[in-house]
C-alpha cells in the first residue's frame, strides 16, 4: 500500500565535515498533509544535522503518537528510532539513552502528546535533564485524530465539530522554565533559518533542549485568527534576536565573521541592528545572538519568564532562544557511567566473579 510521495528535504551533493552528503540525512517520503508545518521542521532537522556535521548513527530518534510523532521516519534514516506510546516518549528516551551514553536523543512530540496526555513525563524528563533535543510540533490541535482541541489551543478557538475551547492554553516554554529545562526556545516552523540555527545549537547542548515550535496544521487549525496558523505566525512573529550557531569543531569562532542571517520571513530593516551576544555551550560551540529591538539575556530564567508572560498577555509570538543554562550536567553525566557504552559491556563486566558469591552469602545471615 505504499506509494511515492513528496520527499522531505531537497537534494544536495556536497559533503560536510562528517563526510556525508545531505542525502545521508534524509528519511522516507512524508505521509503528512501537504503544507503541514511538521514537514518544514523535518526539512530543517535534515539541514541542521547536515550543517552541524552530525553523524546519524550517533542520534536516536524518539516520538510519541500523533502526526508530529510520525515525523521521525521522514528524516535520518540512518538513525535508530522508536515511535513509542502516546505521551510516553520521555520515559522511553530516558531509558534508551543509557544504552549508549554517547548518543544524542532527538525527540519529536506534539502538543497533545506532551501537553495533554504526556504532561507528567514531559515535566519529569526536563527535571532530570535527559540528554536530548525535545521538539514539540505545536499546532494547538490533535491532527491525527482529526481536529480536537489540545491543551495548547487558544481559549475561545472555535472548531467545526468541537465547538468553543473553554480553557486557557498551556504555555510550553513557561512549563519548561518552571521545570528548569536547561535550554528553551520558541520557534515558528515558517521561519526556517531561525529554526535551523536553534536546532544546531540544541544538538550541541548537553542536557535537554526543549523547542516549542509553532507548526500549523493546515487541515484542522489554520484559521487566520488562530495563534497556530501560518498567517498569524507570519504576521505576528517577533524574534528575540537574530541567531546563528558556530560549531566548536569548525575552529575558533573568531576566524569567521558574523554573517547576518537572512530569515525567510522579512524582518523590519531597522530591527536588524544592535548588540551581539555569545553563549558558549558545553562542547565549546557558541550561539551568537544579535540583538534586535533590545538586548535579551537568554541566561536569565527570570528574564525569560518576563518575556513569556508579556508575550502571553499581548498575544505575541515571540521566537528565539528563550533560555539556556549551558553548564548543567545531563542525566547520564550524573550517573557517572563507565566509558564503554553500557550496551557493549560483556559478561565479564556484568556478572560478578564466582568468588563473590561466597561474600554475598556471608552477608546474609
Amino acid at each position: 500500500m505504499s506509494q511515492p510521495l513528496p520527499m522531505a528535504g531537497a537534494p544536495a551533493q556536497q559533503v560536510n565535515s562528517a563526510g556525508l552528503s545531505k542525502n545521508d540525512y534524509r528519511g522516507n517520503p512524508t505521509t503528512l498533509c501537504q503544507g503541514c508545518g511538521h514537514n518544514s521542521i523535518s526539512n530543517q532537522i535534515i539541514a541542521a544535522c547536515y550543517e552541524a556535521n552530525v553523524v546519524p548513527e550517533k542520534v536516536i530518534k524518539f516520538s510519541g503518537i500523533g502526526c508530529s510523532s510520525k515525523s521521525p521516519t521522514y528524516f535520518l534514516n540512518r538513525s535508530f528510532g522508536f515511535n513509542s506510546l502516546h505521551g510516553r516518549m520521555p520515559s522511553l528516551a530516558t531509558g534508551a539513552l543509557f544504552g549508549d551514553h554517547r548518543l544524542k536523543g532527538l525527540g519529536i512530540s506534539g502538543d497533545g502528546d506532551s501537553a495533554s496526555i504526556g504532561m507528567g513525563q514531559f515535566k519529569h524528563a526536563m527535571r532530570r535533564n535527559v540528554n536530548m533535543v525535545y521538539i514539540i510540533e505545536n499546532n494547538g490541535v490533535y491532527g491525527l485524530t482529526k481536529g480536537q482541541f489540545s491543551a495548547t489551543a487558544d481559549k475561545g478557538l472555535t472548531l467545526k465539530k468541537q465547538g468553543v475551547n473553554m480553557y486557557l492554553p498551556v504555555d510550553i516554554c513557561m512549563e519548561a522554565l518552571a521545570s528548569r529545562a536547561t535550554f528553551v526556545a520558541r520557534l515558528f516552523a515558517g521561519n526556517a533559518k531561525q529554526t535551523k540555527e536553534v536546532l544546531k545549537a540544541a544538538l550541541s547542548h548537553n542536557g535537554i533542549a526543549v523547542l516549542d515550535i509553532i507548526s500549523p496544521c493546515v487541515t484542522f487549525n489554520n484559521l487566520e485568527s488562530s495563534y497556530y496558523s501560518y498567517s498569524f505566525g507570519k504576521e505576528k512573529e517577533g524574534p528575540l534576536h537574530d541567531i546563528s550557531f558556530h560549531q566548536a569543531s569548525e575552529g575558533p569562532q573568531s576566524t569567521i565573521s558574523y554573517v547576518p542571517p537572512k530569515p525567510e520571513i522579512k524582518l523590519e530593516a531597522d530591527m536588524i541592528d544592535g548588540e551581539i551576544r555569545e553563549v558558549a555551550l558545553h562542547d565549546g560551540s557558541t550561539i551568537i545572538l544579535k540583538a534586535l529591538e533590545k538586548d535579551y539575556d537568554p541566561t536569565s530564567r527570570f528574564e525569560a519568564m518576563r518575556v513569556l508572560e508579556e508575550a502571553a498577555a499581548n498575544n505575541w509570538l515571540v521566537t528565539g532562544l528563550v533560555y539556556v543554562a549551558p553548564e548543567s550536567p545531563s542525566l547520564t553525566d550524573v550517573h557517572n557511567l563507565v566509558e564503554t557504552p553500557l550496551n557493549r559491556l560483556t559478561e565479564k563486566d556484568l556478572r560478578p566473579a564466582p568468588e563473590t558469591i561466597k561474600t554475598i552469602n556471608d552477608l546474609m545471615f
Partner: protein
Amino acid sequence: MTQNRIVNDFSITVGTANGSGSSTANTTLLRALFKMGLPVSGKNLFPSNIQGLPTWYTIRVSGDGFTARREEQEIVVAMNPGSFVQDLASVTPGGAFYYADDIKLPINRDDISLYPMPVKQLVRANAEIPSNLRDLVANMVYVGILAQMIGIDQSKIEMALKFHFKNKEKPVSLNMSMIRAGAEWAAENLPKTDPYTLEPLDKTDGLIMTDGNTAAALGAIYGGVQFAGWYPITPASSLAEALNEYLPQLRKSEDGKNTFAVIQAEDELAAIGMCVGAGWSGLRALTSTSGPGMSLMTEYAGLAYFAEVPVVIWDIQRMGPSTGLPTRTSQGDLSFVYNMGHGDIDSLILLPGSINECFEFGWRSFDIAERIQTPVYVLSDLDMGMNQWMTEPFTYPDQPMDRGKVLWEEDLEKLGANWGRYKDTDGDGIGHRTLPGNTHPLSAYFTRGTGHTPEARYSEEPDVWVANINRLKKKYETAKQYLPKPIVKTAEGAKFGIIAYGSTDPAVEEARLKLERDHGLKSDYLRLRAIPFTREVSDFITAHERIYIIDMNRDGQLHQLLSMKYPEHATRLVSIAYNDGLPPTARWVRTAILEKEEN
C-alpha cells in the same frame, strides 16, 4: 500446669504497635533460633501505616523443618494495649501468654500460663539507656525473658544483634544489657508452667537467612542487570532498594564508575517506559512493582510484547483488587498478567517458589527475555518478598549469559543487506536485533507499535499483520524450552495430584506429609514454575484422575488457566482457592483436600 515438655515445635507471636521498633527484636529472635540450628520461619503481619496501629510477628519453630505459617499460637507476647484482648484470646489452650504488666486489662483465661513482664520498670532500672531510646529497647525485654523461659542461647542472640547492627558495639551492648536484664529477672521471678521449650539442633547448618526481594535483586545483579526503573510501592520497594545497596558493592568498574543505572521514576508508567527504552537499547532492564503499578504498566507492557523488547517485570503481589491491603500477601495477579494488555497477548510468566528461585530467576529472567525478545513477568508475593526465610546459600549461575540474537558491526558486515529486524530466518519466530550505537550504516531500524514488515517498514497490509502476529505466537512456543520446568514429586500409590506455585509451597509440602501420615493419603505434586505450560504439566494432568490446584486468591486463577488450556482434562482439575491476606497454612490445604476427598 503441665509437666510434658514440648520441644522445638510451636509458634510464638508478638503483638506490638507499628513503628514501635519491635522489628529489630523480632528478627533478632528469629535469627537466634536459626543459629541454634532450629528450622524457623517468621512472618510479619503489619498494617498499612507507619506508626501506632497493631502489628504482629509470628515465628514458627519446627524441628521437623516445616516453615509454613501456623494458625495455632502457643506462645503469645502482648506489648500493645490496642490488641491485648485479641492477643489474649489467640493463645492456644495450654499455651503461654507474656504481657507487659503496665497494660491493665482484665485477663479472663485460666487454661494458659500467664507471665506478666515489668517492661517499663526494667527499662527504667537500666541506667545505661538514654531516655530517647527507652521505647525502642523496651522490646528487648521480652526477648530476654523469652530467652530465659524457652531456652534461647544468649550468644546466638548476640550474633543476631551484631549482624543487625553491622557489628557496631554500642547498640549491640545496649540491647544485650536489656536482654540480660530481662533474662535475669525471669530467672528469679517467673516459674515456668508451660511445656514449650527449645533445644539446639543442627538442622540449619550451611543455610542462610534472607528475604525474596533481596534474593531477587542479587540474582538480577548476577544476571548483569544494567538498568532498573522503579517506583516505590509496598511490598516491592525493597527489591529496588536492595539493588541500590548491592550494585555499588558488586558492580563498580575499577575506576569507581558505574556499569548500571537505577532510577526512581515519577510513576510506574514511566518506570516501565524507561525499562522498555533501556531493554530496546540493549540493556538488561528490570522494574519491580505490585498490583496498582502493574495496572499502570499495562499499555507499555503491550508495546514491549508487540515491539519485541526484552524487559523483566517483577510483580511482588499484594492483596488486590484496587489499593487492596498493601501489607498483605496474595497470588491475585496471575490472570491479569496472563492477559496484560489489550489485543491478543501472550505473557511469559515465571513463578519462583523459594528464596533460591528468586535468586535464580533473578538472573535467568534476563536470559529468557533477551532470548525471546519479550517481557518476562516474575510473580513473587509479599510473603516471599518481604519476610525472612531460611534457605540454601545462593549458587553461582550455572550457565553463561544468553544475550539472545544481537548483531554488531562485524555481524552486519557479513550479512549485508540481507538483514531484516523481524525476519524469521531461524524458524523459531525470533528475529535478529541491532542496538543503538551500532555504527554500521545498515544497523538502524525503526521500532513501532504499529504494523510492520519483516524489514521493519510500516505496513497496514492485512497479510503482513497476520504473519507478524502469528510469528509472535511462534515465539511463545519457542519460549517453552527456555523456561524453568516444573518440579514434580511423586509418591508410590498416590491417590491424587496437587499443582501449586509460588510461596504456598511450604504449606503444600507440609499438608502432603500430614495427609499421608494422618490419613494415609499419598499425593503427587507438581510445583509450577513458569507459564506457558510445558509438556510436564499435561503429562502430570493426564497421569492423574484428580488434581487439586492450590491458589492463594479468590477465583482459583491457576485453576482457570489450566482449565482453559487443557479443556479435555478440565473435569479432573479441582480448585482449592482462598486468600485472606495472610500466608497460607498447611492446615488450610489439608482440610480443603480432605473435604473434597471425603465427598
